[in-house]
């Protein structure tokens, strides 16, 4: 996640090894300063008065994530009851998504470089019901930590066989499944020597529009996660752990790919979904 503008020219001569790397400036905080900000918030949270409920969501205002400073609303959101279309979600079906879009390793003429993985899990609503026939979208960096995106300035190689984007529909059990390669970590400009932990971006719809969720899936044991101003904006340790996939050897396929499981829980629906909600998504099957 770099700034939206291309790298500013620097007065110092860039080195050959880091052709587009901005030189540190006095305004740029260090990882130690950012980590101190994060730890202060974590300690304040751990010391919250007994009986204070655990936080389940990401913090909105999070100063360690510098891009948030001018973008997060100052006012608390206004409470309202859902009405009309808000009680429903958009409907996607077989016309919208080709099943081949769930395999990010077959979009080029050859095999992408990197560690081939399967990522699968169930999408559930807050009452434990599977979210069926719904759109799931993913995007990610390649194995070297580089996005196809034109604004990605990281001098790591692009992979001609990997775009890093995919889609699928959940099945009758709420299960999604993607085949891809494990993304690499990559640097960004939040502070000096800032690196994002390896992650896959995910977009989910529920059965009503208030459940709309865009988030990121992380990998187990990533040492960068605790240093990252985006992942740590989820302060509660249990809530943060819900963004981390589990390695699952039963999903690992011999001679082919390692397997990760990541179940996703949306917020509660405001309307009990009916079986015939599926009619449009599954056509004659519903």
């Amino acid at each position, binding site marked *: 996640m770099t700034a939206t503008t291309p790298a500013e020219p620097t007065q110092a001569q860039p080195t050959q090894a880091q052709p587009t790397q901005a030189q540190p400036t006095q305004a740029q905080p260090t990882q130690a300063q950012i980590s101190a900000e994060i730890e202060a918030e974590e300690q304040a949270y751990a010391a919250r008065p007994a009986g204070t409920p655990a936080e389940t969501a990401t913090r909105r205002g999070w100063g360690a994530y510098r891009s948030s400073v001018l973008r997060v609303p100052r006012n608390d*959101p206004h409470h309202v009851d859902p009405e009309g279309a808000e009680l*429903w979600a958009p409907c996607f079906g077989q016309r919208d998504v080709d099943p081949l879009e769930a395999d990010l390793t077959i979009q080029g003429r050859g095999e992408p470089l990197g560690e081939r993985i399967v990522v699968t899990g169930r999408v559930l609503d807050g009452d434990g019901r599977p979210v069926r026939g719904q759109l799931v979208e993913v995007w990610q960096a390649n194995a070297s930590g580089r996005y196809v995106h034109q604004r990605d300035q990281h001098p790591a190689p692009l992979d001609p066989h990997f775009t890093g984007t995919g889609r699928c529909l959940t099945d009758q059990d709420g299960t999604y499944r993607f085949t891809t390669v494990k993304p690499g970590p990559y640097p960004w400009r939040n502070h000096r020597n800032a690196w994002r932990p390896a992650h896959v*971006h995910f977009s989910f719809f529920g059965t009503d529009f208030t459940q709309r969720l865009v988030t990121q899936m992380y990998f187990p044991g990533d040492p960068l996660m605790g240093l990252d101003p985006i992942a740590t904006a989820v302060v509660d340790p249990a809530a943060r752990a819900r963004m981390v996939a589990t390695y699952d050897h039963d999903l690992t396929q011999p001679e082919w790919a390692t397997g990760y499981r990541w179940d996703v829980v949306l917020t509660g629906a405001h309307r009990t979904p009916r079986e015939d909600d599926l009619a449009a998504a599954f056509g004659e099957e519903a």
Partner: protein
Amino acid sequence: MTATPPTPGQTVGPFFHDALPWPGDAALVPPGRADAVRLHGVVRDGAGDPVPDALVELWQVGPDGRVVQQPGSLHRDGHTFTGFGRCATDRAGSYSFTTLLPGPHADGAAPFVTLTVFARGLLHRLLTRAYLPEGRGGTVDALASDPLLSALDDAGRATLVCDVDGDALRRDLVLQGPGETVWLTYPRLPHGG
């Protein structure tokens, strides 16, 4: 109540453009259609600067006020109205949808579309509504009796009702600061929406 705690949101980041937009995403109906209406605006940050890397989604009922459950948003056939669209802001922070005016979803209800905004710097998506103004699908009585609008002061209400902009409707989205859009949260969502 909620049996299982929800998965937290994370920012959409700056690199979604190859994944989330699709050709025709913002044209819920072809622009040349007689009853097509343009709904557009600028997304601005707390410094008043346009946000060139936001993604806006629109979800609405049809002109008859009924919820649409038609697939095909990602491959529009030119005939089916799906009620859902998506638009990445351009370099000037502008978004623009071509759609049909939503009807009242209940007797006497004020018609609106629901918008969600994603952007780098927003750790979680924002939700709001854009109400149809008087004379363009909205009525004085319906707007005055709307449960949300009637709970707001004039300044807050003004951020939710579209302005008439010639043949189009305009709804700027201010993330933060003066003129900040009234962002919404609903029952069953964690604190902060």
